[in-house]
């Protein structure tokens, strides 16, 4: 029986439950916009995180294109100096906090419960709250564009430049407060996923049988758990300075500007591992599947991920080598920064050895994964040159650094994300993304990114500073290294890159209109998220699996002949699914939708808006938050069965009660 042919089960339209613990009756819709806005389902939340992140990717991309347009020619007139400052600040802030982090959260939310054989996360309402907080925080941050100018101090917002004297507009306040809200989202998400991984694994799934993606996400959540409070402190100090007259960054009063720098980078360095580890996890899933070999050195990949997470706390001042730290600090941090290249190198080796001797299948997902290995390595190599403090003193605040982090972020994090799109799209949306368009997507992005960021190595070493809104012919120089030529190449490259991104969006559109459905297991994959329907049912698994192996799904499909060590397929995905349906669990309790997460999340930007304009507004926001908190606390996570009593004949509630019993 082909499961994908089955008609979708009809869920009867529900009436509002008659009894509830909370102050309002619970939402119950399973269709329409309400089923998204009040959902606590990790899969829906994952999709919403992904869509939000994609939107902000475009926003951040447009900001980047404006920067490159400004720098394409000498004496650029596209952006004046003030607007240029806002543009590079918001480009970075958007890409880091509103694109990469939420996109990783989207993948994590969707796939971690599936990969560990769970039915949802540990705290579903908290999960929903995290998403809405992120969305509202991101919108709040960007309101500044329309309300007096966006933040203009760089994404690292160094003090005292960020203070009220040098950044008088509200932009920095919107930035600081918006990030606080996003930080709350990250922190709650981290707690949620850590507890989910610790406590909700399927029977038999020990930590060392977990898929690598889940492992990397777990390391990321620990990094978030401990790093977000540090930037929270920094942002509070900044807000108090700007709004309540605190002296923290007032040099005349004896303040040390390095206070901000330290606090920011103690967060900031773990943050960059937060940005890259999810993509490392995705690639660690994709490479084995399309090499038709298990991941080489699974324990090494796990431990090197944990090592990166741990050692990553000891390197932050390498962002401050030129700040006057003193030779002892510089030497110490230079050494620790060299050390951290080692665990990353371990991963590169393991990925390469995974492919070695494998039967490679060059799907778009695989191309993006290989692209990450190559291009992240390029970025890693320039990173190694930064670790050497004397050479970094030459490189810092030049375009050489810009080249480094764009290679690791675009060539690393973003290519990994796109690999994940092409790999998991059939599972999430039931359709395969078009491979031909995917090829165009991949090649245009790779060519574009190399054209854009490659020349920046040259620009940097030739002395072009960062954050300079204009360059002139007089300073551009001549010959092979003349800045005029390479700036133009970089700007053209950025447009090639954006066409590549456009190809992805076209692919999404074309795929959506293509009626052809994807098979359950198109890639012959290895992990449990593939042991589901397309898309997975609301409760994920009809039967919670008992896990015996790493890559358990693969081992359910294949048996090894101990004599010849060959794997023969004994079951298809469809057969496994059919068997599960026959043995489906009768009593499945799923957490119920709720109003409180979005209401509580909505209160937060109201509070912050009031801090900027009128404290009375903050009081209103506070009341909303308090009201929602009580409503949430008084409501059980799963609506009791009495809420679904069949009190209306023909409403079908009795069928739903059966589903929820």
């Amino acid at each position, binding site marked *: 029986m082909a499961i994908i042919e089955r008609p979708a089960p009809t869920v009867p339209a529900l009436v509002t439950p008659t009894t509830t*613990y909370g102050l309002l009756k619970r939402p119950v819709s399973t269709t329409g916009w309400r089923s998204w806005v009040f959902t606590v389902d990790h899969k829906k939340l994952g999709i919403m995180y992904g869509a939000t992140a994609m939107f902000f990717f475009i926003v951040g991309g447009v900001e980047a294109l404006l920067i490159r347009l400004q720098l394409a020619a000498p004496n650029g007139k596209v952006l004046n100096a003030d607007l240029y400052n806002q543009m590079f600040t918001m480009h970075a802030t958007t890409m880091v906090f509103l694109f990469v982090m939420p996109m990783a959260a989207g993948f994590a939310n969707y796939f971690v419960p599936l990969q560990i054989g769970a039915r949802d996360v*540990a*705290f579903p309402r908290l999960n929903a709250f995290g998403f809405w907080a992120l969305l509202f925080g991101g919108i709040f941050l960007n309101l500044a564009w329309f309300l007096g100018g966006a933040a203009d101090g760089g994404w690292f917002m160094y003090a005292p430049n960020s203070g009220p004297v040098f950044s008088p507009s509200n932009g920095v306040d919107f930035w600081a407060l918006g990030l606080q809200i996003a930080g709350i989202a990250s*922190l709650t998400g*981290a*707690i*949620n996923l*850590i*507890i989910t991984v*610790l*406590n*909700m*694994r399927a029977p038999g*799934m020990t930590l060392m049988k977990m898929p690598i993606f889940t492992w990397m996400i777990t390391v990321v959540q620990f990094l978030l*758990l*401990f*790093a*977000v*409070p*540090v930037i*929270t*402190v*920094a942002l*509070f*100090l900044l807000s*108090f300075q700007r709004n*309540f*007259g*605190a*002296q*923290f960054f*007032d040099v005349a*009063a*004896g*303040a*040390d500007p390095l*206070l901000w720098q330290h*606090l920011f980078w103690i967060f900031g360095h773990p943050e960059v591992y937060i940005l890259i580890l999810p993509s490392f996890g995705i690639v660690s899933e994709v490479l084995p599947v399309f090499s038709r070999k298990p991941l080489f050195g699974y324990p090494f990949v796990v431990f090197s991920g944990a090592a990166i997470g741990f050692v990553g706390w000891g390197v932050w001042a390498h962002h401050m080598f030129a700040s006057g730290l003193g030779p002892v600090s510089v030497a110490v941090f230079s050494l620790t920064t060299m050390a951290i290249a080692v665990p990353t190198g371990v991963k590169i080796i393991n990925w390469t050895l995974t492919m070695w001797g494998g039967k490679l299948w060059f799907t778009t997902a695989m191309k993006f994964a290989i692209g990450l290995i190559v291009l992240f390595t390029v970025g890693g190599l320039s990173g190694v040159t930064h670790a050497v403090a004397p050479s970094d003193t030459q490189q810092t605040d030049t375009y050489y650094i810009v080249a480094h982090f764009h290679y690791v972020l675009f060539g690393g994090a973003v290519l990994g994300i796109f690999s994940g799109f092409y790999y998991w799209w059939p599972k999430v949306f039931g359709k395969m993304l078009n491979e031909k368009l995917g090829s165009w997507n991949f090649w245009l992005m790779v060519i574009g990114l190399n054209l854009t960021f490659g020349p920046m190595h040259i620009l940097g070493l030739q002395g072009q500073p960062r954050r300079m809104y204009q360059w002139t012919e007089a300073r551009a120089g001549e010959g092979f290294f003349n800045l005029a030529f390479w700036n133009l190449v970089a700007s053209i490259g950025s447009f090639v890159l954006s066409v590549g991104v456009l190809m992805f969006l076209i692919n999404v559109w074309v795929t959506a209109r293509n009626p052809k459905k994807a098979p359950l297991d198109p890639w012959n994959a290895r992990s449990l998220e593939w042991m589901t329907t397309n898309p997975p049912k609301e409760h994920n698994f009809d039967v919670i699996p008992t896990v015996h192996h790493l890559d358990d799904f693969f081992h359910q499909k294949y048996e090894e002949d101990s004599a010849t060590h060959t794997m023969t397929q004994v079951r298809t995905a469809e057969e496994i699914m059919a068997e599960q349906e026959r043995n489906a669990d009768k*009593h499945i*309790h799923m957490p119920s939708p709720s109003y409180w997460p979005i209401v509580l999340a909505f209160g937060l930007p109201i509070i912050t808006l009031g801090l900027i304009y009128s404290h009375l507004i903050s009081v209103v926001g506070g009341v909303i938050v308090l009201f929602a908190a*009580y409503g949430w*606390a*008084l*409501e*059980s*996570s*799963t609506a009791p069965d009495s809420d679904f009593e069949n009190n209306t004949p023909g409403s079908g509630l009795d069928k739903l009660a059966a589903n929820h019993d």
Partner: protein
Amino acid sequence: MTDTTHGHASSTGISNVKLGMWAFLGSECLLFGGLISTYMLYRGRASGGPRPSQIFDIPFTSVSSFVLLMSSLTMVLAVSAAHKDDDRKTNLWLTVTALLGATFVGGQVYEFTAFYKEGLGFSTSLFGSSFYTLTGFHGVHVTVGIIMLMSLVGILKRSSVPGKKSEVVEMIGLYWHFVDIVWIIIFTLVYLIPV
């Protein structure tokens, strides 16, 4: 009912909420650590205003520290009573804890008012800003704790409560004790070490 929010059917056999609370407290160490470090950096920078050794009233603060410390005892007695399903004693000890906490906060308010009158404002100096920020954050945490305690007393009086009563009391207890241990650090590092 396979409700994993209360410790059933989990890989480790322990409660999700308890794990979540301890993870949260682990992260709070980074929050208070940052505020304490900022204070330690700036405690000697008084810009001509009052210095710590000039303005602190150690006897007074010792008393309010003692009060907060004892509130940890009453909190643990509340948890103990909750485990024995003694609703009356639970509510009694929760209320006493809240009252002790309120006494502490009252003491802080009095202390800050006195300091302000003696010339130490939020904007006076780096010492002032970092002192009030650190102790203010702590005070807000205590206040949130008091609100949670009183809300809990109210909720426990209802006939039915989501989740297991004793676990909720225990979780709020963990938060309360954490707030107390932060003060143990603040009392020593801020007040008792003269600058």
